[in-house]
């Protein structure tokens, strides 16, 4: 039940993001989408991912996006209202994609797939949260991607800082 509420919220706010012409409203409807997706993560026994979603998306990416909008427009100004183009093409491509995806999801019988036979209820087991097993996994099986990710973040940090700083005019 809770899942359907979250799903409805996510779809409605994502649709609003696409439909609205106001950039700010788009940003805040993205907030609702992200929050409902985080809620769905919790329902899927992925509490750590849900909180990371909150922390990184809501606390980081969304703030960046809002800053990006606010630093490149003014209130009650044309620049905060964005027009849409390619409407016909866009809608037809998106609809085609959606129909194709839904059709293929409908055709697949997931219950017979051998790698989906694991018990879906027993994710947490005795633990109160997935954080313990995620931590162990990160330090054993996934230690290389983990380190590469940290390197990527460092590079992104330096790159973003370099791009955004005003270079002295020579």
């Amino acid at each position: 039940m809770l899942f359907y509420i979250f799903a409805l919220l996510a779809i409605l706010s994502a649709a609003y993001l696409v439909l609205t012409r106001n950039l700010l409203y788009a940003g805040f409807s993205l907030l609702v989408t992200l929050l409902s997706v985080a809620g769905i993560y919790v329902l899927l026994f992925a509490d750590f991912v849900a909180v990371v979603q909150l922390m990184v998306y809501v606390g980081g990416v969304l703030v960046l996006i809002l800053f990006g909008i606010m630093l490149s427009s003014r209130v009650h100004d044309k620049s905060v209202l964005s027009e849409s183009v390619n409407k016909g093409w866009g809608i037809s491509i998106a609809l085609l994609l959606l129909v194709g995806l839904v059709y293929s999801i409908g055709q697949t019988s997931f219950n017979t797939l051998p790698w989906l036979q694991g018990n879906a209820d027993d994710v947490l087991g005795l633990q109160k949260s997935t954080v313990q097993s995620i931590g162990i996994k990160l330090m054993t099986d996934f230690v290389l991607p983990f380190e590469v990710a940290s390197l990527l973040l460092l590079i992104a940090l330096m790159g973003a800082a370099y791009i955004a700083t005003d270079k002295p005019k020579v």
Partner: protein
Amino acid sequence: MEQIPLEHILILSAVLFSLGILAVITKRHAVVVLMGIELIFNAANLNLVAFSRHDSSLLQGQLFSLFVIIVVAAEAAVALAIVLRVYQHFKTAYLNQIVGDEHKS
């Protein structure tokens, strides 16, 4: 708590994905295009987490979605830095109005 059917989650993520594609295609403001990309990432993450439920011993889906989120954070930081730079240079953040100097009449 009753179990959420896998198909429903996949359909939700398909809807989010196509809305993201729609935003990327139809919108002209760089930041909104970025938001569309966020939607697509979220749809993918949703799939990963949904399948990870059937993989309780390994949690590979959740771990993969964590890495996706990290990449998204890096991408957003760099992309917004670029958007700000573009805005400073061209005085607009609309992708269709960005014209190189040689094309300006």
